[in-house]
């Protein structure tokens, strides 16, 4: 009998295992893929602030590029520079980063087993008690006190456990990305974000440099678009100087949760973290920090529960409450800003690019500065109606 079984060795799963192992628990992570960290599922950016709050000091081999600002482009190519005034974050190499996180968990006493496919969640009296899986052809059954689903957006484990995590298709972006080389990046310290209904309907295109001639070039759009994410990105690459003659090192795709934050992420002896629980920043789709942040709360609540001999849903509900208190409510505000941005026409984006300053955009991604946005929106009659959606009080 394990104390805790974690399914999924992404940043959330490995963080949960690390925290629990540090508290002395017997914890194992099962990863269905044969390699941790591959294929990657994102632009690979993470801020220094996030890393610091998580207490992570990255080894050099995980870091590809230091970032100090972001250029946000409107459809007319005018842009707002979001400058942090200093180095602000990294573009990491997920293949190294995720493996390093797993190594850290193991250093604290956790076990990891890649290429382990969980086929069934075992239940007794309707309550989760363990898993049945297969590792390289060998079937096994294992009991646990608590099962953590950290298996990404499709979260099969949650479904098998009985928690409905089916995402609203409007709240999952269709994502597609190339890692490219043989391209020209004028300043690798800058990330680039392109908005516009013709280039990325209700989403955006990103360039996250990994050096002077390497970058993640990706797109996230609402699924119900005229063309596929791949087609929109190909068009962008074709018409962009510096990219169009580039080579493709890697192709990634996937669903990016951009909302649908869940009030209930728990069952008896079970909880979900990370993408599996739709824990992402609804504006930038960033999930690495969110997953690890939630993992710490989850580990604390599970620790308390196991000590009391009570890992019932009622006890684990503290995880729901704490997460909403410390993170969810903030992300909910970010979601409101995204909801407004989805309604904007290209002209509106052009207008906002002139009105907004870089600092505004930093605030928005943190769920702050809604009032400032409201004040700009009411300048245009057709935008004023969206102010209501921000739930502001003037």
């Amino acid at each position, binding site marked *: 009998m394990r104390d805790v079984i974690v399914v999924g060795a992404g940043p959330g799963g490995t963080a949960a295992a690390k925290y629990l192992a540090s508290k002395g628990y017997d914890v194992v992570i099962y990863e269905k893929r044969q390699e941790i960290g591959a294929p990657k599922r994102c632009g690979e950016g993470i801020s220094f602030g996030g890393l610091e709050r998580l207490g992570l000091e990255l080894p050099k081999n995980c870091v590809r590029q230091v970032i100090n600002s972001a250029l946000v482009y409107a459809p007319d190519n005018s842009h707002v520079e979001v400058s942090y005034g200093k180095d602000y974050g990294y573009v990491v190499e997920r293949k190294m980063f995720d493996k390093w996180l797993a190594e850290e968990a193991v250093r604290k006493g956790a076990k990891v087993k890649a290429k382990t496919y969980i086929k069934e969640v075992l239940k007794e009296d309707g309550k989760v008690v363990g898993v049945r899986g297969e590792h390289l052809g060998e079937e096994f059954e294992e009991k646990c006190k608590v099962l953590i689903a950290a298996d990404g*957006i*499709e979260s099969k484990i949650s479904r098998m456990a009985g928690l409905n995590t*089916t995402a609203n298709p409007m709240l999952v972006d269709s994502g597609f990305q190339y890692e490219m080389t043989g391209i020209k990046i004028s300043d690798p310290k800058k990330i680039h974000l392109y908005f516009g209904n013709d280039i990325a309907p209700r989403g955006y295109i990103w360039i996250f440099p990994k050096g002077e001639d390497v970058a993640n070039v990706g797109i996230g759009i609402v699924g119900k678009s005229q063309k596929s994410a791949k087609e929109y990105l190909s068009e962008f690459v074709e018409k962009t100087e510096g990219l169009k003659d580039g080579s493709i090192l890697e192709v990634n795709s996937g669903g990016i949760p951009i909302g649908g934050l869940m009030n209930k992420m728990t069952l008896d002896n079970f909880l979900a973290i990370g993408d599996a629980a739709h824990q992402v920043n609804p504006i930038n789709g960033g999930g690495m920090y969110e997953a690890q942040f939630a993992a710490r709360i989850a580990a604390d609540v599970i620790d308390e529960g196991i000590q009391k001999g009570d890992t019932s849903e009622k006890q684990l509900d503290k995880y729901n409450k704490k997460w909403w208190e410390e993170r969810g409510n903030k992300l909910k505000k970010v979601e409101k800003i995204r909801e407004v941005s989805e309604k904007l026409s290209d002209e509106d984006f052009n207008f906002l690019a002139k009105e907004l300053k870089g600092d505004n955009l930093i605030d928005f991604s943190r769920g702050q500065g809604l009032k400032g946005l409201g004040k700009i929106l009411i300048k245009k009659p057709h935008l004023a109606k969206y102010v209501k959606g921000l739930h502001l009080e003037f």
Partner: protein
Amino acid sequence: MGWKWDKNKCLRCGGCVAVCPTQALELTENGIEWDESRCIHCGICEEFCPVKAIKVKKEKKEDKK
């Protein structure tokens, strides 16, 4: 009615599995598996697929009797 999956286009990302409202899809070792009994032919997976690897055939106008 039917559901077609192009294994050569598919990147096995599982996005379709995540958005399927009836949990009719599963990402397995063999790729995307379709459970006809659960599928309601809504086409959300087709709309969502970043690389257009899925085609959903909806009911024909004249039903064969």
